[in-house]
């Protein structure tokens, strides 16, 4: 690609380099645009009217008929093409058979009849931000005080407690595995790693029975939250790897000064591990926020739904409110994207550990 012989003149090398750079940029841009277009489509759909959504072929930007307001009444405006080829904008008052009754917006008093096929629609770009308000406040079940806002609140509550639970349980466990040389530790750690291989389907039914029948926690957040207070293999592993890199001299010095393990853990190790702890907090949030299967299994009544479940509300038996669904999806997605821009390092580190799969 970049091989050239010494007899080539520098200018031609420059030209060649330029085209090479240009080609690379063009290639990246093309693929990048393909990756990005769905986002634009989501945002654009979320701002469209219901009529605009049904249009074939669809418009890229939200569009609607131009209207004119006369004496507090709104009339659609069309382009009238006359026989002589000239065209002008007219407002349509009504229809009579194959004719339309139109008038000049500047002179509303005089109307005239023209054939419908001489009129063409005028579409203007208009963003319907109220879709967002409607998506959030739409009663998902008539009579119940449940809106998408309820789901947002539920998702936040669950994510918050999952982060608390994960951090409170995984840090001491990882400390135990990383820095206390107790007999049998390495054997137990193999069990920790082995649970990573366990598909959730294996434990699903007994846990469902345990939570629903034995503990009577059905249709509450507890089955989703409580297990996080008992540590999980991925985060133990990540924290343990990090704790092991902290020099043992620091703990030894504290031990000489009379500190016990708990004090070493809370006063020395934790403050030094803020980067990895924030990675785990971010990833626990991401996991809890995106989780679909857990809520699907345990949450039955609509006032307990999370956003992942609630998105299905916009899908009725016969039709789908695509504009509101996309607005709700934007609301669902934006917190994660915002979090990503602030916490890129944590995201990348977490991806490298988990393989970046979600499901």
């Amino acid at each position, binding site marked *: *690609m970049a091989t050239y012989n010494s007899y080539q003149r520098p200018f031609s090398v420059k030209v060649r380099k330029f085209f090479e750079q240009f080609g*690379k940029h063009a*290639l*990246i841009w093309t*693929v*990048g645009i393909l*990756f990005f*277009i*769905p*986002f634009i*489509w989501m945002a654009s759909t979320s701002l469209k009217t219901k009529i605009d959504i*049904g249009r074939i072929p*669809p418009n890229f930007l939200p569009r609607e008929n131009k209207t004119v307001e006369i004496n507090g009444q709104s009339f659609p405006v069309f382009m009238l093409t006359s026989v002589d080829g000239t065209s002008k904008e007219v407002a349509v008052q009504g229809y009579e058979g194959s004719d339309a009754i139109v008038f000049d917006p500047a002179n509303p008093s005089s109307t005239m009849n023209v054939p419908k096929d001489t009129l063409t629609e005028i579409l203007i770009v208009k963003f319907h931000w109220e879709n967002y308000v409607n998506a959030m406040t739409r009663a998902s079940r008539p009579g119940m005080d449940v809106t998408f806002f309820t789901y947002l609140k539920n998702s936040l509550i669950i994510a918050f407690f999952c982060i608390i639970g994960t951090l409170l*349980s995984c840090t*001491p*466990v990882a*400390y*135990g595995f990383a820095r*206390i*040389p107790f*007999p*049998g530790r390495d*054997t*137990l750690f193999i*069990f920790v790693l082995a*649970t990573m*291989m*366990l*598909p959730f*389907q*294996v*434990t*699903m*039914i*007994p846990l469902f029975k*345990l939570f629903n029948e034995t503990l009577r926690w059905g249709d509450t957040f507890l089955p989703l939250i409580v297990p996080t207070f008992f540590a999980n293999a991925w985060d133990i592993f990540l924290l343990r790897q990090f704790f092991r890199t902290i020099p043992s001299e620091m703990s030894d010095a504290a031990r000489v000064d009379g500190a016990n*393990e708990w004090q070493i853990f809370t006063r020395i190790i934790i403050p030094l591990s803020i980067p990895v702890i924030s990675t785990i907090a971010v990833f626990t949030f991401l996991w809890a926020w*995106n989780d*679909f299967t857990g809520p*699907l299994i345990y949450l039955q009544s609509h006032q307990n739904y999370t956003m*992942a479940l609630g*998105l299905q509300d916009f*899908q009725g*038996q*016969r039709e789908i409110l695509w504009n509101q*669904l*996309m607005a709700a*999806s934007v609301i*669902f*997605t934006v917190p*994660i*994207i915002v979090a*990503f821009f602030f916490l890129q390092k944590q*995201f990348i580190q977490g*991806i490298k550990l*988990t*393989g*970046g*799969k979600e*499901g």
Partner: protein
Amino acid sequence: MDQPASIETPLKKQRRKLTRMERHNLRVGLLFISPWIVGFLIFSLYPMVMSLYYSFTDFQGILASQQTWYANYAAMFRDERFWNAVKNTIYMVIIAVPLNLIFSLLCAILLNLKVRGQSFYRVIFFLPSIVPAIAATMLWIWILKPDNGLLSTVLSWFGVHSPNWFLDPLWSKPALILMGIWGIGGTIIIYLSGLQDVSQTLLESAELDGANWWNRLKNITIPMVSPITLFNLITGVIFMFQYFSQAYVFARFASVGKAEIVVGRPMDSTLFYSVFLYDKFTNFRYGYASAMAWVLFIVILLCTIALLKASNRFTYYAG
């Protein structure tokens, strides 16, 4: 608290007592890891034992269960729908996983080129992968809609007629694969970190020796990122065996306007292993579903071991 089995072996062998320090460490260590021990017993070990037990009964939720031994397994292997689910899952493992890997590697190579603005491009390529799976699936259903979707419109510019992804069982899985490719950002990132370790001097000297782009890719880059490929392959295969949410939402959409919502629509073409298992679970066929879960577990274990064994032959570890 149960004592770890391993400490008994040295005790028997050496016939010595734990020193005071060791006993102290054991007490403190177990205290520190006690959340995991309790969690392991309640949320892993107990349910594992129970589901293995259920798989040998005709347990159906409310009804009293009866020992049936291998009846669930036998019924499963005779069930045409089960084999259909297996077939669909294997389709995804064989087609979607390699496609994801190939596209991820190519994108990672693009993002590893020495051009300005790469950190910006990396964000663009990565963003789709953090969109919640449900939202991403809904968005893609909207894009793929055959009458007024974005894709069918673009295809029509080129005179191509869009297939009906939601009615045609031949096209439903390609639709899901397409959705999956949009979200490969995580795999790209992992490949990218691997590419940054590929020796630049090796690539440059190969270039001076006249190796073209394809030869350098085939003979240097791909062998050098093979450990990463292995990691991505294992996680990809495990993910595909448990593929659920996207297929579930897809089938729900394919049911719009139909009398009832049925998993696997259209015509069981999106009935994947985990979807079928979930279907059995919601129909209170707990014994059957548990048997399926255990078969899944064993298959995942075997696949991982096989891939790790095979990797000794195909992957290259530097140093």
